[in-house]
């Protein structure tokens, strides 16, 4: 039996596909930050894609089966909980598990598809819940510097806090948990209007025009409320808000760049890691944090 | 018994305000229905004691109908909700006692539903005819009366269960 401390600080980890490619830096920074805070991950063996939007918008049963495959793997691995850092994965996983528990017909069908029985519920948590569980105090205790120059617009996107009945976490319209976490880095947060507005994620490739418009509005609202950086907690949000700024410049001449950081990168900066270590230099919009007082302790 | 000539005996416990008046309306409208059912008027379907029903079977009734106001129309507000709960349990227990549960039927008939009343009586009569005569009552008369305390127990059980759902 492991000690109490270890039990609490060990989390099942479901990275999700983006984490291995376009959101590499999210994965890198998350793992580093977690380690610094004294927690550890147990990655799900042989995890597969949750089916993402494409499965659930076209084939409900396929979507349910793909998501449940991973939940069952976590169960087989003896895990109680599982972190899904991608908001979309998180949403698919919690929703599928919820629906299966509510609707026996669906449960049966899904079990048949997977040729396995659904044994136990896994507490699937998102990245915000993870940091709240680890404890904001842990961040403050381990902080090497205060990011006091930052005015952060916390962007939840649409899938992190919805649907409220299933996620049972924070508030679906006026969430505050990311602000709490960001403020623990010493950064300030701004009150703005688009924190749960959708960026059109799913259409990133097929209807880039839509995504560019929606993301532009989000960036502008953040800026007009005084933000100098946006914090995100989802690879899709990041792709749209960061990378699409290039297209934005074409559609909206005069567009001014606004850096978009993963929440984990912000925490990493506060914990004393540098931009390169955290993968921030992989972003489309270059960003470097400058301390107000040059001689501040940097690890 | 000659099946052709046999006519079922049916007892209907009906509430004064809705079903009894609905039956009056069926009469005023000269609707026709079989003459098998005899009505016993009570104030509210909530006051119908399961023992009444057992007594009816004991007396050789082939079928029993219980009918009151529609759930939200009860003259006494909630009486028929109690009735409804009680019957849910009681129905199951009839089986246990050894009386086919189809012999006991329930309906909600309002004062304006003369047609429904006639239809229900027709249906119940037809159903009971299909079931055939209830012969166990002869046994009931001797054995059942002897084990009456036991029936009381059964009835008690239904009522306690009903309590739990209040």
């Amino acid at each position: 039996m492991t000690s109490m401390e270890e039990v609490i600080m060990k989390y099942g980890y479901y990275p999700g596909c983006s984490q291995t490619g376009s959101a590499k830096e999210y994965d890198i920074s998350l793992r580093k930050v977690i380690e610094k805070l004294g927690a550890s991950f147990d990655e799900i063996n042989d995890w597969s894609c949750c089916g993402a939007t494409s499965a659930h918008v076209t084939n409900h049963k396929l979507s349910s089966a793909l998501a449940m495959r991973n939940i069952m793997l976590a169960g087989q691995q003896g895990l109680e909980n599982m972190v899904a850092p991608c908001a979309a994965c998180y949403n698919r996983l919690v929703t599928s598990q919820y629906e299966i528990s509510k609707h026996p017909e669906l449960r049966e069908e899904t079990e048949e598809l997977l040729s396995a029985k659904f044994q136990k519920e896994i507490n699937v948590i998102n990245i915000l819940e993870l940091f709240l569980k680890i404890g904001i105090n842990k961040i403050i205790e381990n902080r090497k510097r205060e990011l006091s120059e930052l005015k952060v617009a916390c962007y939840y996107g649409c899938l992190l806090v919805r649907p409220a009945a299933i996620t049972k976490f924070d508030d679906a319209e006026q969430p505050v948990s990311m602000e709490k976490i960001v403020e623990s880095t010493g950064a300030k947060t701004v009150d703005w209007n688009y924190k749960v507005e959708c960026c059109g994620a799913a259409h990133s490739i097929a209807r880039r025009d839509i995504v560019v418009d929606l993301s532009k509005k989000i960036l502008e609202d953040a800026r007009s409320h005084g933000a100098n950086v946006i914090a995100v907690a989802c690879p899709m949000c990041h792709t749209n808000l960061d990378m699409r700024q290039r297209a934005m410049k074409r559609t909206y001449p005069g567009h001014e760049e606004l850096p978009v950081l993963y929440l984990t990168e912000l925490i990493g900066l506060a914990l004393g890691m540098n931009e390169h270590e955290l993968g921030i230099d992989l972003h489309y919009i270059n960003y470097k944090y400058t301390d107000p007082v040059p001689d501040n302790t940097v690890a | 018994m000659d099946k052709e000539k046999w006519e079922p005996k049916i007892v209907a416990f009906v509430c004064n305000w809705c079903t009894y008046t609905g039956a009056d309306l069926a009469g005023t409208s000269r609707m026709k229905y079989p003459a098998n059912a005899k009505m016993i008027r009570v104030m509210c379907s909530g006051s119908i004691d399961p023992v009444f029903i057992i007594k009816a079977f004991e007396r050789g009734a082939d079928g029993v109908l219980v009918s009151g106001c529609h759930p939200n129309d009860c003259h006494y507000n909630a009486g028929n909700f109690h009735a409804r709960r009680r019957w849910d349990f009681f129905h199951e227990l009839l089986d246990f006692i050894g009386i086919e549960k189809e012999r006991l039927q329930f309906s909600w008939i309002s004062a304006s539903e003369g047609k429904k009343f006639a239809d229900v009586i027709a249906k119940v009569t037809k159903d009971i005819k299909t079931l055939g005569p209830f012969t166990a009552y002869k046994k009931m008369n001797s054995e059942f009366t002897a084990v009456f305390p036991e029936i009381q127990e059964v009835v008690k059980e239904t009522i306690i269960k009903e309590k739990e759902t209040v």
Partner: protein
Amino acid sequence: MSANDLKATKKLQASFISPTPQTGPDQDHINSTEHIREHTIADEISERTFQDVSLCYQCGKCSAGCPVRYYMDIAPNKVVRLIQLGFYEDALKSDTPWLCAGCLTCSTRCPKEFDLAKFMDAVREIAIEKGVEIKQKNIIKFHKAFLDQIKSHGRAYEVGLVAEYKMKTMDLFQDVDSAPGMYFKGKLGLLPHNIKDRKGVKSIFKKTSGK
């Protein structure tokens, strides 16, 4: 359900506009007291989404908050309306379900607690099953390409996805902004991540699509 069912829908649609009395030999089969209702597409959607489509009272709050409303041909609430009234073909052909980003804004705010996002899922699903011609071709091709990656590798393989999508759409220039940038930043792996249990995943696809 097969593609033929849509024809039945058409008939229903016509009879909705001007109800014609049912006479003729068919009538003989119908037991007057036990009329069995046809299982409609509306019923099908209600079943798949575990909620009755008649719940929606057409307040429009969903459409009012929908982030992609401006790009749709008809408002999201109107898709529900069309289904409620039996104008199935119009609903299934609309590009609204395809543009729906699944953001759950509507579902979160609906005063009737109607899960419209889930409803949209079902509409798309049925449109595919019935082989309805969909205007938003690129979107459906994207989903197809995405799922193909999972089917073969167990995980999304971004290079493969983009390649397949481009092949399907012949839209070769659309993404010039991102892919090369991503590649040079080392974010796009050139090789797919294959999971071990690809057979298992493939079988799920097979069982759910019949392919």
